Every structure is written in structure tokens, then in C-alpha cells.
């Protein structure tokens, strides 16, 4: 492993790039920890955002104004304000109020706040995609299902959602790739993700360009993985007669 790293460092040195910090155990360790934190962040937020999106889409299409209105207002506010400001509103304001209320027993770490904020933010985008998918389900299918005495919840869960999922899958995957890139914002409130680890390293040893290339490659790889999983899902869930 270390032999490979040394080979890589020597090869990069020929192009004028100094990757010497990878051989330093401490700096390599902090980078690897940062990468693991980013991956954990992505995993939690992907699940959280899908759940939030599902709940919001169910509220939007419920047909009851008392559910649909608040969901619509929440989605519009979320889509039209920057994530960073939302993160600050949550972490600097709500977290402060929470700490004042319960003291040091505040259970929410910065990591948890990032997961909550990005989940809700991307949940709003998922909800729009899912709503469009739910509305694209043909009316005759719904009529057929309700003539078989499906209740409203069964209709949503067994008929509308499986179809809506397939209609919405391309935009959901698009949102998830966006979500992966968005996790870099976590560094703003000192969550030790890979961006934060890189900032810590380059403030000490002025090697911004090398770290930037590493960061771009890492995020490129993560988006690529999400994209591949999405493509595989699309192929697996493909409906005969739709798409190509």
C-alpha cells in the first residue's frame, strides 16, 4: 500500500505536483477520516432526504389543503433560499436556542444538523419530482384500483408510489448527485468532512492545487457511484412500454 503511494507521489512530482503529505501518517489519517465522514454524511442524508421527500409528496398530493398548503410553503421557501443560510439558521439560531433551553444536554451535534438541513432541503426537491411522478400516473389506473376497493393509503402505497418512483427516478438521481456535492457545505460549521480536512492541511502547508485535484477526483468518484447505482436501478425497474 505504502509502496503504491510512494510510486504515486514520485510520479506526481514529475508533473510538479507535491503529494508528499500523503506519506505523512497524520495528514493521511485526517484525510481518510474526512473521506469516511463525507461518505457517512452522504449515506445518512440520502436516506433522510428520500424519507422527507416521500412525506412532503404525500402531503402535497393528499388533496387536503391543511396538509398541502404547509408543504407547499415549506417547499417554496426551501427551494428559494441558499442552503448555507438555512444551515446557519438551523445551527447558529435553532441550536443556540436549544442549548439555552436544555443546557449542555443538547443532543444534536453539528453532524446531525447538517444531516437534518440537507435532508429537508433535498427532500423538497425530491417531493417536487415525486409529485410530478404521482400526477403522471394514468387516471384509468387509479380508477381501476379504486374499483377494486383499495383505500386511499393502499392506493398511494401500492399503486401510485411504485409507478411514480419509476417516473421520477431520473430526477431523483439528479437530486442525489446534487446532494453529494452539497455535503461540502458541512465544512462551514466545522464538521470534519473531506473539504474541512483539506482546508486544515492547506492552511499548514500551502499545497492547494494538489488537494483541489484530490477533492475534485473524490467528489467525481462519489457522483459517479451514485450515477451508476441510479442507472442500474433505472434498468432494473424499467417498465415495458415506457422510456427506451
Amino acid at each position, binding site marked *: 500500500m505504502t509502496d503504491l503511494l510512494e510510486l504515486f507521489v514520485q510520479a506526481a512530482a514529475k508533473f510538479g505536483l507535491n503529494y508528499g503529505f500523503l506519506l505523512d501518517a497524520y495528514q493521511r489519517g485526517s484525510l481518510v477520516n474526512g473521506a469516511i465522514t463525507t461518505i457517512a454524511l452522504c449515506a445518512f442524508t440520502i436516506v433522510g432526504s428520500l424519507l422527507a421527500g416521500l412525506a412532503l409528496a404525500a402531503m402535497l398530493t393528499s388533496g387536503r389543503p391543511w396538509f398541502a398548503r404547509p408543504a407547499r410553503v415549506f417547499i417554496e421557501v426551501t427551494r*428559494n433560499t*441558499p442552503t*448555507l*443560510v438555512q444551515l*446557519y439558521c438551523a445551527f447558529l*439560531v435553532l441550536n443556540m436556542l436549544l442549548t439555552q433551553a436544555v443546557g449542555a444536554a443538547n443532543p444534536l451535534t453539528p453532524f446531525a444538523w447538517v444531516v437534518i438541513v440537507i435532508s429537508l432541503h433535498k427532500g423538497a426537491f425530491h417531493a417536487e419530482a415525486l409529485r410530478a411522478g404521482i400526477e403522471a400516473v394514468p387516471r384509468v389506473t387509479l380508477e381501476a384500483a379504486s374499483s377494486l376497493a383499495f383505500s386511499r393509503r393502499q392506493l398511494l402505497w401500492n399503486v401510485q408510489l411504485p409507478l411514480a418512483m419509476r417516473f421520477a427516478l431520473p430526477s431523483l438521481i439528479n437530486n442525489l448527485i446534487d446532494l453529494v456535492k*452539497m455535503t461540502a457545505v458541512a465544512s462551514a460549521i466545522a464538521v470534519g468532512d473531506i473539504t474541512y480536512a483539506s482546508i486544515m492541511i492547506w492552511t499548514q502547508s500551502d499545497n492547494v492545487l494538489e488537494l*483541489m485535484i484530490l477533492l475534485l477526483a473524490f*467528489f467525481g468518484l462519489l*457522483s459517479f457511484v451514485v450515477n451508476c447505482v441510479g442507472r442500474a436501478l433505472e434498468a432494473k425497474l424499467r417498465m415495458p412500454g415506457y422510456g427506451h
Partner: protein
Amino acid sequence: MAIDSPVSLPLGWPRRHPGKLVLLAAVLLWLVFGAPKSPVFAALREWSPALAAGFGQNILISLLAIAIGSVLGLLVGALAVSPLWITRLPAKIWVQVFRNAPWLVLIYFTTYVFPFELHIGKSWISFPDWVKVTLGLALPASANVAEIFRGAIGSIPSTQWEAARSLAFTRAQIFRSIILPQCFKRMLPPWMNLYAVITMGTALASLVGVHDLIDTAQIASNTVNRTGFTVLIYFSVLALFFAYCYPISRFTQFLERRYAFS
């Protein structure tokens, strides 16, 4: 019988939103008459010129970024639709790299990699941080504009190309007088959407030390140091961004509906 059902015309806008208008009037009245007595609002009023200047910086960055991004993006987009693979390849790489990189990373990239000063002739010209942030936002903007352009050209039915070619138009003529005029109309909604997203992206400028709205809000909340003021100022920042981006998004939806079937 369906005949005697009354034809319901959509109401004009002041009658369509009575609840919202009453709420807005109530909030405005309260802000004018009720709020000035509390010290928290007095502090907010004291800080509002600084906040406005900060937001002006955000808007300046966003306008410049979309302008540079559009020019660059149209060039890259033009390369991407050319029939030669040797020009298509660099355009494709450009789009892939800058669409898949996090914006924050690109902003750090331009901030730290570009020099502090430029040496042109004998004079040194300073290269301020906000210009670097503008360039950092213009890069992903250009990649997105290129994709929007390519998508718009792809959305024109290929029969139009064939019809034009059978009328002995050359490729350049088809582009100039048939395809492009239709493309700009189709590009407008996604382009405006992109502008709103870039405006929201300017919030990241505060992380590299540009004195924008969020930076001003942080300074204000640390200076005044009151719980109520901190709550108020961060939610005002949220409200300011919303007030700027929401009309753009509504107008985009309106354009999309209008162009949907034409």
C-alpha cells in the same frame, strides 16, 4: 346538465389572495408602528444599510457570474454541438468536470489558486476576492449554460433540419436563421432558473472572506450579541434571499407554462 353550470372566470389578483394581502398589511403595520419600540428592531434598523450593502455585493457577484458564464457557456455549447469530435471532446470534458464539482470546492479553488495581484505591463493590478468568487461561480454556470444550449438544440425536431436542408440552406444558415431563434426562447426558463441558483450560490462567498450579506449578518450578530437579534437577523437574511429568488422562480414557471405548447 353541464350547460347551466356557471362559467367561473379566474379572479383578478387582488381578489384571488385576500388572506395573504391582509396578512402582509398587518405585518407592515406592525413593523411601522409596533416594532420600533423594541431594542432588537432598533438594532436591526441600525444595521440595515450594512445589510443592504452586503446584499448588493451578492447581487453584483451573481450578475457578473451569470454574464461571464453565459458567454463562456455559449462558446462551450457551440463546441459541444459541432460535428467534429476533436472540438466536441474538450467541451464534453469541460461540462463534465464543472458540473460534477461542488461549487464550494470550485470557489475555494479560484480563491486560493489565482494570484492576489496581476502583473500587466509595469503596473500591478489587485485581484480582489469577490472577483475570484465571481469566476468560481462562472465556471459551473458556463457548464450549465452549455448543457442548456445543447438541450435546446436537441429539442428542435430533426425534421426541421431535413426540411431546411432540402431547401438548400447551408449548415450555418440553418443554425442562424432557423434553429437559434427557436433555441433562445426555449433556453430562457432554464437560464433564469440557473440565475436564481447562482444567486443562492453567492451565499458561499462569505466562507472565503468576501463582505457579503451573510458575513455582515455574522458581524452584526456578534457585535450586538443578543439572542433575539441573532434570531431576527439570520431569518432576515433568509427572507431577503427568498424575496429576491422567489419572483424569479415564479416568472420562470410562468414562462414555462406559456411556452409549453407553442
